């Protein structure tokens, strides 16, 4: 049974978020990226519709594939924040006083994980809304109905993206225990990107069709991976391990 003091968790989360907000490179690389995609992808669609003779139906798989980007982004961005959250504390030697407080390992782990999870998910949702609105504005005249939101995208946003984000954070915790440098931790945790890119490529080649069932299946797989990584990251994030074994 995991006992948690929610106030402690939230104190750690808000502290970490206020530290991220002061790091411009985190802001630019982590939070601006989804906005760029949310505006950039519809702009490409607008260009194709207005400057090419491609039939609109032929673009439907592309629209759907674009929605996968939000799952990919949910996996990439937390590596930037979470690696800073864990390795950053280690490098700046702020972990020992934090560990000396009357907080449990789980509260610290959850607080830090939420600090990486919440800003990313908020930005992903915000970007998704912008993406959907722009896509519908640019495509409605040709499609004749609102292409977004659709059930696949809903599953991606509400299940796949959060689960991918959690997976990325958990992986970052494990990677952070072996790293002494934020950038290296980010790069290694970037390994999380590989399966999502593979998924995107397979979709582009038509090997996998993005529909509700596929996205639910992916959510199931992600959930299983998350559970496994949860136990692994929890085992890594123990006071004694951190003070004596973290490099």
């Amino acid at each position, binding site marked *: 049974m995991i006992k948690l003091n929610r106030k402690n968790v939230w104190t750690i989360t808000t502290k970490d978020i206020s*530290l991220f907000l002061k790091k411009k490179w985190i802001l630019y690389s982590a939070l601006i990226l989804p906005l760029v995609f949310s505006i950039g992808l519809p702009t490409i669609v607008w260009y194709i519709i207005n400057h090419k003779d491609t039939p609109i139906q032929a673009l439907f798989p592309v629209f759907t594939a674009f929605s996968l980007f939000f799952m990919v982004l949910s996996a990439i961005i937390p590596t930037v924040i979470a690696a800073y959250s864990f390795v950053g504390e280690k490098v700046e030697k*702020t*972990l020992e*006083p934090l560990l000396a407080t*009357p907080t449990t390992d789980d509260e610290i782990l959850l607080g830090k994980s939420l600090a990486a999870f919440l800003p990313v998910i908020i930005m992903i949702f915000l970007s998704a809304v912008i993406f959907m609105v722009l896509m519908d504005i640019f495509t409605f005249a040709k499609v004749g109905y609102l292409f977004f939101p659709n059930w696949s995208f809903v599953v991606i946003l509400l299940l796949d993206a959060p689960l991918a984000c959690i997976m990325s954070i958990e992986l970052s915790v494990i990677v952070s225990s072996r790293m002494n440098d934020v950038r290296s931790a980010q790069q290694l945790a970037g390994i999380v990107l590989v399966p999502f890119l593979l998924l995107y490529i397979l979709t582009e080649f038509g090997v996998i069709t993005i529909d509700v069932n596929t996205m639910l299946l992916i959510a199931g797989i992600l959930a299983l991976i998350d559970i496994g990584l949860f136990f692994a990251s929890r085992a890594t994030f123990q006071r004694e391990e951190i003070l004596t074994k973290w490099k």
Partner: protein
Amino acid sequence: MIKIENLTKKYGNLTAVDNLSLQVEEGEVFGLLGPNGAGKTTTVRMLCCLISKTSGNAILNNLSIDNKNNRLEIRKMIGLLPENVGLYEGLSAYKNLDFYAKLYQVPENERKERIEYYLKMLDLWKKKDVTVGTFSKGMKQKLAIARTLVHEPKILFMDEPTANLDPEATKMVRDFILELKKEKRTIFLNTHMLDEAERICDRVGILNTHLIAIGSPDELRRSLWGKKTVVMVDAVTDSILKGIKSLGFEKIVVDNSKITIDVNDPHHDNPSIIRTIQDAGGQIQTISELVPTLEDVYLKEIRRND
């Protein structure tokens, strides 16, 4: 307040702390002296329930570190100043303290008062909204001390509180610890700065994996160093040395015209030493008692136990 019984920490085949037993009373400032790698930080980490012990036990204010359920309570009751200040450099001084005060569950109404009190006491109030990254080392150390105190802990653990500080900052931190001593706080201080221990601590323990000696600086000087008489003569001759040896003193060290003699009782032994030197034709220029510093005692004991 702190009772340590046969506390041992092993990392595989390496013993970091070996069978450490000692007691620290309430309101006492206790200094743990030892070279790098002696096990001082490991001891403090075990006492703060940050790492587990291999065997033995420690009781802090009636709470045993052995009992997992006590760990949060123990951490609530203590304040730890680690060797690295570990402040959030991107946050202001006030926000650093506020963060820790929240984690120590200081009630909201008291939190502001205490933060203001300690920032004013440590002359940091005017800088309360300035990010810590711009602070000097001394200011950071002061802020870290304030962080250690913000929840009014019963026991303070300070690990090398003046390491890496310039002389001015060192003096300021030492003076502040002396202020805390006046408030009768229980302080467990790790240091390898012997003058610091001598000035601040009521009692010290010399640790080199195992406890070599324990007592007040005065007691250690007396019990471990013994008494020495230093005589300066115009010239040390064989007949002077023969005469002193005939008095039964076993350890006599000659350095040019200085003779250092290990004596049992200077009041009883010095007159006969003076007489013997004069009888042997020596002219005494000065005679004095050699008062060892804690450093002399420390170095002697560490070398003896190496």
